């Protein structure tokens, strides 16, 4: 499942859903708003393009690695320190593939999915510079 949502999520629900007779290991990445002296962050997306890109990343991961399932949830809107930002859940027969695929997916999300973050501090706000062009 690929979702972009304002709603919070419970990672446990998606780990549970990834259980399968062929799955021996589930690796998850949960991105959290870290306290970098901020009061809040705001996430903006080009939703249609972002969903399309997330689906492409999922399909690439499924074809590159021996994995069984991929779920990605990305939040948008205003978030506070400690809030969930993103969840990636990868189920695989063997753990190596699950680790490789999960890290591949989060790396690709940070490279190409049209989502942007604006940080708010007591001094003002700034757009977080992307790492890739």
């Amino acid at each position: 499942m690929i979702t972009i949502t304002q709603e919070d999520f419970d990672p446990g629900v998606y780990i549970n859903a990834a259980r399968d007779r062929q799955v021996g290991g589930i690796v998850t990445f949960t991105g959290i708003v870290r306290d970098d002296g901020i009061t809040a962050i705001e996430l903006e997306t080009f939703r249609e393009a972002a969903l399309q890109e997330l689906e492409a990343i999922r399909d690439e991961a499924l074809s590159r690695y021996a994995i069984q399932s991929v779920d990605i949830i990305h939040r948008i809107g205003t978030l506070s320190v400690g809030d969930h930002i993103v969840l990636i859940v990868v189920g695989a027969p063997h753990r190596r593939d699950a680790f490789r695929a999960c890290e591949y997916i989060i790396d690709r999300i940070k490279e190409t999915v049209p989502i942007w973050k604006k940080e708010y501090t007591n001094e003002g706000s700034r757009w977080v510079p992307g790492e890739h062009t």
Partner: protein
Amino acid sequence: MKITVRAFAQFREVVGEVTVLDLPQRSGLPVLFAALASRSDESRGMLFDDQGAIREHVIFMVNRKRVPRSSLDSIILYEGDEVAIYPPVAGG
């Protein structure tokens, strides 16, 4: 012909979220960028460098498909096309 421009993040703040431009038939992306830049000095400064080249950090999609910088001059736009412009992404 009508071309819809969608801008995101700091580009949205300067250019506006949705702009409908009326461009000559078969215009290319350089014409579109010039039209956007002509709307305000702030738009021009965000999109073009001092040499008049489109800035490195400007990313663009036509009809939700990313256009590589190498194809900047070869794309032709058609009535109803949607062009998206945005800075480097920072999700995840």
